[in-house]
């Protein structure tokens, strides 16, 4: 069974059609990169998969581990193992980062019928993940993302991912706004989390991130559809040639 099967997905934002028949299949263990020009619908795809309000699906299906993902609330999708690393992580003043993460962790466990962690158990888990992610524990004591630098926010997203251990991780332009050192740290975090049970969907505008997190598949998203798919060499080709002219290509697999 495929982990994720998206068929003929159409979605609107504020009345405007952004996704126009997108098809994509992702299996456990795979890393897929979604590339494309601005306005192609990359971030819309991530938001639709996570159930953000304001994104209206008008046609198509998304089957995740055999269930209809689109029928679930955002929190239920999270509990089912879907995680979105935000392009712009939200600052939440007054909510301690560790407290928040434990609330999320336990809410997911509760929803799955698993036993919740007490604060000692959770702290132990967090310490382990911190070590692996090479993140300073100072971030834990602060309010969620409040006053974090751009790099700290993105690292915090990856850290949350490490703790929550999703099956399907969607990274929405996680590389944007990062300097090369921060990019390497984020990439290293992602690589650490790669596993045969987990799949990644990396949405990115630039090829840069893919130097550090080598994808199994690269897809070009243009005008609301996947227009070309290939291996990592496709990303290099795009880097050379740019996105110009891509929208005119036939949707990949449209004739299949």
């Amino acid at each position, binding site marked *: 069974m495929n982990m994720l099967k998206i068929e003929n997905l159409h979605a609107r934002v504020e009345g405007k059609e952004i996704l126009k028949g997108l098809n994509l299949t992702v299996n456990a263990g795979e890393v897929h990169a979604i590339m494309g020009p601005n306005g192609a619908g990359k971030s819309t795809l991530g938001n639709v998969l*996570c*159930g*953000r*309000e304001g994104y209206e699906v008008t046609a198509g299906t998304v089957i995740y581990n055999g269930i209809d993902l689109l029928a679930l*609330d*955002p*929190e239920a*999708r*999270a*509990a089912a193992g879907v*995680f*979105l690393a*935000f392009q712009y*992580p*939200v*600052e*939440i*003043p*007054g*909510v301690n980062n560790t407290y*928040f*993460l434990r*609330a*999320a*962790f336990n*809410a*997911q466990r509760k*929803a799955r019928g698993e036993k919740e962690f007490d604060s000692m158990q959770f702290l132990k888990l967090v310490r382990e993940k911190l070590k692996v992610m090479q993140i300073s524990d100072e971030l834990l004591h602060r*309010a969620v993302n409040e006053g974090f630098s751009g790099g700290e926010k993105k690292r915090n997203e990856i850290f*949350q991912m490490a703790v*929550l251990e999703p099956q399907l991780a969607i990274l929405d332009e996680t590389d944007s706004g990062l300097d090369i050192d921060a990019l390497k740290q984020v990439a290293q975090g992602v690589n650490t989390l790669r596993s045969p049970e987990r799949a990644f969907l990396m949405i990115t505008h630039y090829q840069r991130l893919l130097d550090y997190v080598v994808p199994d598949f690269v897809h070009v998203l243009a005008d609301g559809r996947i227009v070309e798919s290939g291996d990592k060499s496709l990303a290099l080709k795009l880097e050379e040639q740019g996105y110009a002219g891509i929208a005119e290509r036939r949707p990949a697999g449209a004739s299949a």
Partner: protein
Amino acid sequence: MNQPATLPLVNALLDSPLPSSGIDWLDAARQENREAFAAGGLPDTRLEAWKYTTLRALSQRRFANGDAHAQEREVDASTLVLPGVAGPRLVFVNGRFRADLSAIDTLPDGLTLQPLSQALQGDAEPLRFALSRSASIRHVRDASDAFERINAASANDGVVLRLAANQKITVPVQLVFIGAATESDLAWHVRNVIELGEHAELSLVEQHISSGEPSYLATLVSDIELREGAVLHHTLLQNTAVTASLIRRSNLRLHARSHATLHVLELGGALVRHDLQAELIGDEAQLDTRGVFMPHGRQHIDTQLAIRHQALNTQSSSNWRGVANDRARGVFRGAMVVASGADGSDASLSNKNLLLSPSAEIDTKPELEIYADEVKAAHGATVGQLDERALFYLRSRGIPLADARVLLTTAFCRAVLDDLPNETLREHLSELLIAQLPN
């Protein structure tokens, strides 16, 4: 309310006999205040300070003045217990002192803590200034002080607390005001006089609760005076039944280098009004107020701060949060005056509000008047809703919508309670606050 004498509320209060103390000046003051109340009547919404709080419904009810059976009302003693608070305790039920519920047998050195009813049986002279002044303050036709007048005319019990100079008391003193159910609508009145001597230091926890679902109108007037260098930590928890109406006035006077910190949590009541009038009369006096008001259902909670800087280099900071749900109404007015001569003063005020329902309303009004030089002043007020982006962020991590709302609302409120030094009490207040949120 042009014809005060025709209003049932006013009639009922005027019909009841005045308490007699046997002290000439006090009985005269009571009479004078009653006459002032009869002449001035109740404030209406044409008065700026009552613009958002109408007494129309309240004024149609007849509240019997005073509870003759206050000593016998049953009260569950466990409701008096507050985590983190285990000092001397003075308890009042329907406005009368209850020795059986209080704990004042052993008091720390330098602390005088007794009910007003007892204090008046001894040497009443030290109370004369506080208890005889109210009526003459304003023009008799002005209804602004209506409830202070009712209180001055009718109150015959309350707290008398004095702390001698240089005494520092570490255990918090607890004052509890309970409204207990009676056979009919009841009005009761409490008058508190609190004074901290020079360089004295005290923690005070003031609690307003109900026993059962009583229907009453309570007025409470507190004079709080901090002599030079005195320090007061005052925490106020108002968690009465939603059938209760509570009208409180606090008159705070801060002498040189004294420092008062006030933390307020307003959760209960049908109609709740708190006027805090603070005068910073000595150089470098400091006042910090923090508060949360959280009306839900059809509650109406109105907080009015009036802070006057009258001396050099005085400081005040006020940070208040309002959360209104259902069809509830919150009102906040923060007026700061930096008087001529109060040079070098620093006054700041912030009031942020959250509306959790489309039918809830919060009216907020910061005011600032400056007549001095080299003053630092800042004020701001906002009314908004929970941040949708933050809600989605929490949900995307697996936190259910209802929990996400509670988490964000609690964080919003806690921001102003976080500097409460008594951690156990702070956590308890936080729990009470969460309990009031919709789940």
